[in-house]
């Protein structure tokens, strides 16, 4: 319990103080406005409107499906391209595709596939591919050639070499690529849900709330989209990093 007090008690007290102050200010006559609901109103909405959590879950499922698919594809693309050593323009091509915001692909796929989950997942997968490919490429370039020669001497075939040497040796690059893919895809999913989701998702909820001028739901959407990302990033990735790259003596910058 001591560690909890040491780490979090001051933060919790400050958060309560900020929320209390906001509650006090936003209920004063002349300041109170429907555009700025009080923290208690937002909290009450989150508790009494469980569909918000269904929307959040829907976005999270899309996130994991698309990030995992996009990441695997990105790694494979980088590995295949690395095999053809003369394709040095690959980095610039990937940088160019990384500069295109994921949401820009949406109009094209809406025309081709219509509204719905297919477009959301496809755009999200495209967004996840490029950071994964970029960092895998850099990881492959940074590999120690002597160690690679060692795997040749040990008689590894290509698959064994990748599984037992290449991927573990560049695990820190893979983790960075995965994290970046994850962050970009989360932003893209929220954006694309605003445009083409038909029934669920945090982005869909936000646009729906905007049309109905339901300000409380808008704030709930903003808070949940930030909190979801933060929780997954801090809990899932920190644990993953702790048990993999840090344990193996690597650093993730």
């Amino acid at each position, binding site marked *: 319990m001591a560690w909890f007090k040491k780490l979090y008690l001051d933060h919790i007290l400050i958060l309560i103080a900020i929320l209390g102050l906001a509650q006090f200010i936003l209920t004063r006559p002349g300041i109170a406005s429907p555009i700025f609901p009080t923290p208690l109103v937002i909290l009450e909405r989150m508790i009494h409107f469980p569909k918000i959590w269904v929307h959040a879950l829907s976005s999270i499922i899309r996130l994991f499906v698309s990030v995992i698919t996009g990441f695997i594809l990105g790694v494979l693309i980088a590995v295949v391209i690395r095999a053809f050593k003369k394709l040095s323009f690959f980095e610039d091509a990937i940088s160019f595709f990384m500069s*295109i915001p994921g949401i820009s692909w949406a109009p094209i796929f809406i025309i081709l596939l219509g509204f719905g989950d297919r477009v959301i997942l496809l755009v999200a997968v495209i967004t996840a591919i490029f950071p994964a490919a970029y960092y895998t490429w850099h990881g492959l370039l940074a590999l120690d050639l002597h160690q690679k020669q060692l795997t040749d001497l040990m008689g590894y075939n290509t698959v064994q070499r990748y599984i037992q040497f290449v991927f573990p040796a560049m695990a820190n690059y893979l983790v960075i690529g995965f994290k970046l893919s994850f962050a970009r895809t989360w932003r893209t999913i929220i*954006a694309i849900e605003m445009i083409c989701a038909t029934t669920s998702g945090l982005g869909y909820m936000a646009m729906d709330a905007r049309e109905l001028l339901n300000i409380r739901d808008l704030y709930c959407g903003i808070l949940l*989209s930030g909190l979801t990302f933060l929780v997954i990033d801090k809990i899932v990735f920190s644990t993953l990093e702790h048990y993999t790259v840090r344990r193996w003596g690597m650093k993730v910058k």
Partner: protein
Amino acid sequence: MKKIVIVLVLIAITIGYAYYEQIAAGHIFAHLWASLSRIIIGYALSVAASFLTALALSFLPGIQKYVRVYLNFLISIPTIAWIPLLLIVTGITNRTMIIAIFLGSYFAIVFNLLDGFKTVDKNLVLLGRNLEYNQAQRLIRIMVPASLNTILVSLKLGISYSWRALIGAEMLGAATKGLGYLSFASRQFYDLKTMFTALVLIGLIGYFLIQLLTHFIEENTIRKWGFNDHTM
């Protein structure tokens, strides 16, 4: 420099193609300029505000650790999630777009700047004390030059976030102009040619903005002075 020239040539070719094909009724440059003017204003405001915030916070190390928690949370919120709210508060105007650009990069730049100031070599800080610099002198003469590397990385990160925020905001909330608007509006007419032209321009200009920061600023400052290279 070579990359910048190639990207500029590609942008010129795409614009030429757009004029030749009468894409956006021959007004492609107006859309391009609308997006560029918004990013210039929004990003400049964001950089100025984030520098002031980071400098102010560096004088207050006691509250910095608490602010960082909230900054971390605010960075986690996708900028696009603010847009429906902004559309209600400020309407379908340029202000919405500029605020979106601002929100897109402000928190990330402040966070990275604070990180940069924190990692300055302690011996340099002690040297400043020995030279009897006051807080402001220490900041301007030691902290800022010593963390130029991180400053540039945060500026590059900021421009990339801002560009994404702008395109999203234009798709959802621009009334008449902008590359995001052009791409999204052409969907209604099944105009794939316009859509792809807008997509290519969005990618090229995003890439150009990052390269511009990398080459014109990074090459002429930190690399020239022998600092380590940082990748984004």
